C-alpha cells in the first residue's frame, strides 16, 4: 500500500481530480457540466475544481483526507470537449463512484452535483447538462409511485388518448368560488384532472375548504356518470403529511408538489404515495433566467422520474413557455422510454438505461389552446398530459364548452394521425373539419386564431458548429 504523507497547503485541483486517462466504469454516475471559467483559469483546472467540489475535495489539503481512501470516493474529471459554436465555455465530463452516494436517493446525488459548486468563484457559469445514472443505481430507486403504464391499468377503461385538462387560475378566489370555477362545469365533461395552483393552496382562504369544494362534484360525477376525475392537491414540505393525508381521506387520487421549492421532500412524499397508491404530479417548468448558470432540464428529468412523480412538466415548444424543440423531444424520451441513446441534437449526452423503471407522463402546459393541438399530438404522442388552463377557462362559453372543444380537437387529431395524416401540416383542415360537428370547437378556433407565441428560444442546444 502506498504511503502518503500530509503536506498542508493549497495545491491545484488538477493534481488530484483531473484524470484524462480514467475510463469510466459501468457503475459510475456520470455528469456533463458546461463550464465557463473565469479569465485566467484553464479548462483542466476548472473541470477538476468542479469534480472536486462536487465530491470529496475542498480548496486546501486537509489531514483527514489521509484517513480515507480518496481514490475510492473522489469524482474525476475525465474528458473535456469543445462546445459547438461557443469558445467561452466547454463541456466537462465527470465520473463519480457509485459509493459516493446513498442508494435510492436521487436527492442525495443532486445535493452533491448541484450543491455549493454552483456558487464557486473560479467559474463564471455552470450548467449541469445531463447525468447518466448506472443501471446498478437505478435498481436501488423505487421509481415513481404511479406511472404511465400503472395509470393505464387503474384509470378510466377507455382512457388512452388523454387530455388532462386543468384549471389553475386565478388566484385569490374564495374556496366556494374556486370550486364553482373549476368543478361543476369542467367535470361534467371529461377533463382528466383539475389542478390547484400553489398560491391558492397557500392562502388562508384555501386549504381544506377548497379541497372539499373541489372534490364534491367529482364524487358526484364518479358515482353518477362514471369517470375518474382528480384534483391535484398541492403538498408542501411543512404541511406535507397532513395535506397528503387529507387528500387521501377525501379519496383524491392525485397530489401535486412543486419540484424546486420542495426538492427535499421528494423521496418522503414519493414513499408516502407508494404506500397509499396516490399519483404524484410534479410542477416544474424550468424558469430560464440566466442560461449560463442552471441545471438543465435534461438532468431535472432524472430526479423527477427516478424517485418521485408520475408526471413531469416538460417544455411545450408551441406554448407561451420556453422550449427548444429538439431538447423537448429529448426530455419526453427520457421520461417515457426505457433506453435512451446519446443524442447531442436533443441534449442527451449519455446513453441512459432505465432498466425496468416505468415511464412517466410528460406534461405540456402554458398558454396552449385548440390551435396547438395538432402540434401537441405530434410532439407528445399518446401517454402525455396536456394542461389547458386558460384554454379551458377562457372559452367564450365557459369551461364546460372549453373542455369539450379541447376534447374534440384532441380526438380529431389522434384519429387523423392514426389514419396516417401528417397532422402538423394538415392541422388546420383537421380542426376545421372537426368544428363542423362541434360549435364549441368552432367558437374556440375563432377566439384564439390570432394568438401565437413565436419568440426565439432563449435556452438553445449547442448544435450550431462553426
Amino acid at each position, binding site marked *: 500500500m502506498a504511503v502518503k504523507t500530509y503536506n498542508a497547503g493549497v495545491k491545484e485541483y488538477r493534481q488530484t481530480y483531473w484524470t484524462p486517462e480514467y475510463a469510466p466504469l459501468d457503475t459510475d454516475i456520470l455528469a456533463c457540466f458546461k463550464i465557463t471559467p473565469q479569465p485566467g483559469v484553464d479548462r483542466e483546472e476548472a473541470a477538476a475544481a468542479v469534480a472536486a467540489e462536487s465530491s470529496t475535495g475542498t480548496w486546501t489539503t486537509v489531514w483527514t483526507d489521509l484517513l480515507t481512501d480518496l481514490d475510492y470516493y473522489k469524482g474525476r474529471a475525465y474528458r473535456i470537449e469543445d462546445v459547438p459554436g461557443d469558445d467561452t465555455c466547454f463541456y466537462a465530463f465527470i465520473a463519480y463512484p457509485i459509493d459516493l452516494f446513498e442508494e435510492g436517493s436521487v436527492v442525495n446525488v443532486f445535493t452533491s452535483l448541484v450543491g455549493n459548486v454552483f456558487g464557486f468563484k473560479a467559474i463564471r457559469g455552470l450548467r449541469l447538462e445531463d447525468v447518466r445514472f448506472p443501471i446498478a443505481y437505478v435498481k436501488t430507486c423505487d421509481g415513481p409511485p404511479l406511472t*404511465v*403504464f400503472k395509470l*393505464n*391499468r387503474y384509470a*378510466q*377503461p*377507455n*382512457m*388512452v*388518448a388523454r387530455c388532462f385538462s386543468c384549471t389553475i387560475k386565478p388566484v385569490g378566489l374564495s374556496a366556494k368560488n374556486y370550486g364553482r370555477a373549476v368543478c361543476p*362545469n369542467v367535470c*361534467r*365533461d*371529461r377533463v382528466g384532472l383539475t389542478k390547484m395552483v400553489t398560491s391558492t393552496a397557500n392562502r388562508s382562504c384555501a386549504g381544506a375548504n377548497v379541497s372539499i369544494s373541489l372534490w364534491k362534484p367529482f364524487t*358526484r*360525477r364518479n358515482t*353518477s*356518470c*362514471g*369517470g375518474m376525475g382528480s384534483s391535484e392537491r398541492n403538498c408542501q414540505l411543512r404541511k406535507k403529511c397532513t395535506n397528503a393525508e387529507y387528500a387521501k381521506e377525501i379519496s383524491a387520487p392525485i397530489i401535486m408538489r412543486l419540484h424546486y421549492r420542495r426538492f427535499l421532500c421528494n423521496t418522503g412524499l414519493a414513499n408516502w404515495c407508494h404506500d397509499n397508491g396516490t399519483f404524484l404530479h410534479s410542477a416544474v417548468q424550468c424558469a430560464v433566467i440566466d442560461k449560463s448558470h442552471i441545471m438543465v432540464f435534461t438532468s431535472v428529468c432524472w430526479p423527477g422520474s427516478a424517485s418521485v412523480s408520475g408526471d413531469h412538466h416538460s417544455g411545450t415548444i408551441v406554448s407561451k413557455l420556453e422550449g427548444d424543440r429538439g431538447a423537448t423531444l429529448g426530455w419526453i424520451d427520457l421520461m417515457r422510454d426505457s433506453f435512451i441513446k446519446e443524442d447531442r441534437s436533443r441534449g442527451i449526452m449519455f446513453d441512459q438505461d432505465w432498466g425496468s423503471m416505468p*415511464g412517466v407522463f410528460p406534461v405540456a402546459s402554458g398558454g396552449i389552446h385548440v390551435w396547438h393541438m395538432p402540434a401537441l399530438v405530434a410532439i407528445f404522442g*399518446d401517454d402525455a398530459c396536456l394542461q389547458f388552463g386558460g384554454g379551458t377557462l377562457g372559452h*367564450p*362559453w*365557459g369551461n*364546460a*364548452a372549453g373542455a*369539450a372543444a379541447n*376534447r*374534440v380537437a384532441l*380526438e*380529431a387529431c*389522434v*384519429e387523423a394521425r*392514426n*389514419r*396516417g395524416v401528417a397532422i402538423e401540416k394538415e392541422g388546420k383542415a383537421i380542426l376545421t373539419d*372537426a368544428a363542423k*360537428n*362541434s*360549435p*364549441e370547437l368552432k*367558437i374556440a378556433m375563432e377566439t384564439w386564431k390570432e394568438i401565437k407565441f413565436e419568440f426565439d428560444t432563449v435556452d438553445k442546444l449547442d448544435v450550431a458548429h462553426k
Partner: protein
Amino acid sequence: MSEVIDYRSRLSDPASRKFETFSYLPSLDKDQIRKQVEYVVNKGWNPAIEHTEPEFLMSNYWYMWKLPMFGETDVERILAEAEACHKANPNNHVRLIGYNNFNQSQGTAMVIYRGKTV
C-alpha cells in the same frame, strides 16, 4: 355582452355521456374503423374486442369477446370479429383494443359500435 350558448350536457341525460377516445366525434364510419384497425395492426399491437351494456360503460372491466387475437394481422378477420360481437350484442358498446405487450398496457382503445343508451 357576447352571445353565450349553453353547453348541453347533463348527468341525467345518458345520451350526453361520453366514453373517452373518439366519443367526442361523430361515430366512425366503416372506412374510418378500417383505418383504425390498420393502425393497430401496423403498430404491431394485439387486437381485441370487448363489449358492455352502456349503463356499465365506466366499469373497469368489460366483457371480453373471446380472447385477444394474438398475432392477428388480417384486418378483415379483425373487422369480422368486431361485427360478430356487435351482431351478438346489438345493444352494447363494442370497443376495439390494441394491446401493447412491450409497455404492458393498452396502446389504444375506442368504441367502434355505439350501443343503445338507456
